[in-house]
């Protein structure tokens, strides 16, 4: 079932649609939550966060009649925001996540959402995948390297070169 089918179902029968969304995306949302919360939460707390994320998605959809272009995209944003919030709640040693290199580049260039997405897309594959994994979902380099079947040193150099490229793209666009 693709996102359009899911959205149709959600609009026709929200509860059935919600069930279908959970069936389809629970592995995905669990992965997002596990990457962000795995070090500070129990598995049970992570599952709780995942169910809260689906509930937020459902409530948001009920509010706007599921007027959204992508279930996956919508869930991704809600999941990230909620997981960061939960991270802050559970993290005892370090109450905040540091701003990462990409976020600092964005700040330096006053980048907006469209420009950032354009720039990430311009990186091409697999670098755009790496960047979203690392900087959006917060996945660790070694885990990204393992999942993408490359060495960690290769990944590190791709990240480094990608950051330079991204900085250049954003600067050019700013001009």
């Amino acid at each position, binding site marked *: 079932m693709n996102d359009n089918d899911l959205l149709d179902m959600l609009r026709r029968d929200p509860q059935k649609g919600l069930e279908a969304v959970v069936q389809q995306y629970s592995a995905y949302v669990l992965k997002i939550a596990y990457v962000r919360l795995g070090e500070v939460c129990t598995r049970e707390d992570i599952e709780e966060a995942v169910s809260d994320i689906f509930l937020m998605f459902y409530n948001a959809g009920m509010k706007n009649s599921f007027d959204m272009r*992508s279930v996956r995209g919508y869930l991704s944003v809600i999941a990230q925001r909620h997981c960061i919030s939960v991270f802050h709640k559970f993290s005892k040693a370090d109450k905040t996540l540091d701003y990462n290199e990409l976020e600092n580049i*964005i700040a330096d260039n006053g980048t907006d959402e469209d420009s950032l997405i354009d720039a990430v897309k311009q990186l091409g594959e697999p670098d755009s995948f790496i960047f979203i994994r690392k900087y959006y979902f917060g996945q660790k380099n070694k885990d990204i390297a393992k999942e993408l079947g490359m060495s960690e040193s290769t990944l590190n150099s791709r990240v480094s070169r990608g950051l330079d490229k991204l900085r250049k793209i954003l600067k050019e666009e700013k001009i």
Partner: protein
Amino acid sequence: MNNDPVRLSELISTSGAHRLNDEFAEFSANAEITDEEQQRILSSVMRKAGAEMKETMTTKKTRRHSRRFVGFMIAAAIAVTGAAGVYAYNQFFHKENVEHYIKNGEQLEERGLAANIQAQTDDLRFTVDTLLSDGHQAYGVLTVEHIGDKAGQALSLRDYAVTIVYADTGEFITNNWGGDAYIDGTEKAGQTRQIICIDLTGVDTQRDVKFLFRRDEPTGSFYGSGKLTGQKDNNDIPIRYECEATASLRKNVENIDLYDSEGRKVTLSEFEIYSSEVMWEDTSSTKNALKLIDKDGNKTDCTFTDITGYMETYSYITFNKLVNTDDISGVEINGIEYLK
């Protein structure tokens, strides 16, 4: 231009996220979940959504939070909007501020009553931390804080103001701002907090509203800064604002009607006693003015312990903790009993 670092999670919006679908899909390629995990999550979600679970509800889980969302239809109806700048978490951004006025922070979170509706200017961030509505009044907690270069700098409740209008037409509903009565020296540096209290008489709560925030600078007038909305308030003064957030005033807490021996009605909700008429005197100066009556007829004096505010003119008394209306059979106000 705002050059403060911004979280990617905040920069990527729900409306723009679809453009990253390929990247998100790639990330999900190796995502795995066991049948049992999926079943637990599905059961939890559906239970929270107040939906009827057929098979999954009867399976074997006894989860730590399994009973947290009893009566969840209330929370499921809470407005959680994906509009820009407005989103909701289950965790408060300023829990200590919420609990300064409403002690049941955990309960509010569990019931999805953490609103976390935000809007900001270059140097001020406004957060409606929670917004409860019993259909008669909306009652919430607002935190305002300096950000950016001004982060941590002193902020007064008189430095800003809030106007509430209908989201669809901009039509004026009310102004709402704090007074120095809310300042008690326990605020965080660069931050203020206050109660928002909105009389819903004549307000169509089915329509979304906008909170229009503005600084009270530089003119010193409540209408002195920000953009014109094109609307005017009840005194024909143009409404200005600098940032806005959308919210819902739909009923999201329980209430019950109570009557005295002459048939006069008051409403007891989870956060207040309300009457549309002038029905009682200043309870703060009247001994034993307010008592809650439980199912067994026992009376608990709340006058000096559980009240955050009162209004004589159209009569409400707000509590500093949620009241379980199921456990209450009535109230006594200045010696007069109001019962179910």
